């Protein structure tokens, strides 16, 4: 069994994308992006292959959309500039390409849940990511497949407020019992 075979199986389970990363550079072998509804299927594949769970965590991508837009705008502007310069160099009149600023609502920022799996026998660290919008951070639990995920999910809930649907006991683990704040969110203020 090797990473390529796992990759195929994961792809068959409904993952959005499965990328083989450069292990030496990144530290993990497979980078899998799944939609929340396909998460359980993907994890089941890993369970069947004998993977063990390393960690579950979250990442708050607050401001990512704004940054992305800024980036595309900057890119567009740069392109336009390049074009304009090229045109200028060619002695032509600059084409009237107005920088096309995207208007309208930004897409909502997302939270990302990251699952790390590894295998005891061979080296194939699989990272599964699933993204959900910040206003409705819900993702199915995998604690029925991996009981060890129970605590990891509780911790992630503590820190990011991600709700693991179907989790048997989603109460704060590291924070005080009555904590209702999620300190690792980027907009957290004590």
């Amino acid at each position, binding site marked *: 069994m090797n990473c390529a075979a796992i990759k195929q199986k994961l792809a068959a389970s409904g993952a959005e994308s499965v990328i083989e990363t450069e292990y*030496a*550079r*990144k*530290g*993990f072998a497979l980078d899998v992006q799944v939609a929340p509804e396909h998460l359980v299927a993907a994890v089941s594949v890993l369970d069947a292959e*004998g*993977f*063990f*769970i*390393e*960690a579950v*965590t979250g*990442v*708050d991508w607050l401001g990512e959309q704004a940054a992305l837009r800024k980036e595309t705008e900057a890119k567009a502007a740069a392109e336009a500039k390049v074009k304009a310069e090229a045109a200028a160099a060619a002695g032509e009149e600059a084409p009237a390409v107005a920088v096309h600023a995207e208007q309208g609502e930004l897409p909502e920022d997302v939270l990302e849940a*990251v699952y*790390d799996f*590894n295998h*005891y026998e061979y*080296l194939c*660290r699989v*990272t599964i990511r699933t993204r959900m919008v910040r206003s409705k951070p819900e993702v199915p639990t995998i604690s029925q497949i*991996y*009981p*060890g995920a*129970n*605590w990891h999910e509780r911790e992630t809930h503590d*820190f990011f407020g991600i709700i693991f649907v179907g989790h048997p006991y989603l109460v*704060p*683990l*590291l*924070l*005080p019992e009555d904590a209702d704040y999620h*300190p*690792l969110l980027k907009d957290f203020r004590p």
Partner: protein
Amino acid sequence: MSAFAESEAKETFVLNLGPQHPATHGVLRVKLTMDGEYIVEAEPVLGYIHRMHEKMGENRTWAQFLPNTGRMDYLHALAFNHGYVSVVERAAGIEVPERAEYLRVITSELNRVSSHLLWFGAFILDLGGFSPLLYAFDDREHILDLLESVTGSRLTYCYFRFGGVYNDIDGDFVVGARAFIKRLRGRMPMYHNLVTKNIILMKRLREVGPISAEMCRKYGATGPVCRGSGINFDVRKHEPYSIYPEMDFEVPVYEQCDSMARYMVRMDEIEQSLRIVEQALDKLPEGPVMADKVPKIIKPPKGDYYHAVETARGSFGVRVVSDGSNTPYRLKLRSPTYSNLSLYGEACQGMLLPDALALMGSLDLVIPEIDR
């Protein structure tokens, strides 16, 4: 509801172990539901020493997070140093001089020995024996002296830097380390005679606290816990980092799955670590201990990176998400004992209280590392 109907359900009572309790090695709380002296349910309650390491990581520069790594697992601080600097080096593409890697391994392995010695003592203390603790501390002091002469501190080391280590060693250290190895090898038979072969200890640990290999997998247990269950998994062999591929050492694996197996794994690991230190001292190359071209302010390229190291308690992984700035965007610390402890609730069901505490001791808990 009649009184008769609830009779079976309410024959139990709740015993609160901790957060201040001698057996929990710190501030862990375990809510035990007991039926007499039998444990019906155990629920560890964490967070009593949650020190916000992950939040601090996002507030500090990459370099400023270094002292925190020494305070997560204060018993094997250097491995945590190692994990963190390795992931940042991987992210930023920093080459480490060979001598520095050797020093990292030497100090880290000595630190592992000291961690195991302390665990040994504390474990026997849990079981009620007091003197072995102090004998172990006696040996441990020698390691601490050695490490202090290199790093300047006794416990919460902050020795590794991006691209190398902070200080070079001197000849005294090499002599001292060799002398220590000789000394500890001479002491190990004493430990085995005094403790391992003791009938009381054997009765307490044999066939107590079974953790199956499947359970290890489901809970993600690593380190001596999974090696005591017959799983040959050691990050140093599994995904070799630093100079471990060049070292000749074995990974002790025991199949019995009980507390005794975990005990034996750690005792054997002491010997293996001594072997590694010995080899590393033999092969120690000359050269600088710090890479030349380490930028003053580190800004790893965008993306996320992972690096795992083997600490005394298992696989410690750091996942960093960089947004290209001088602070980490997200810093996830995957601590081994967190996973190891998570199986405790299932493992100690139906056990007697003293056995459950022996099992807890055999998991080798360092609470600040669990709570982070």
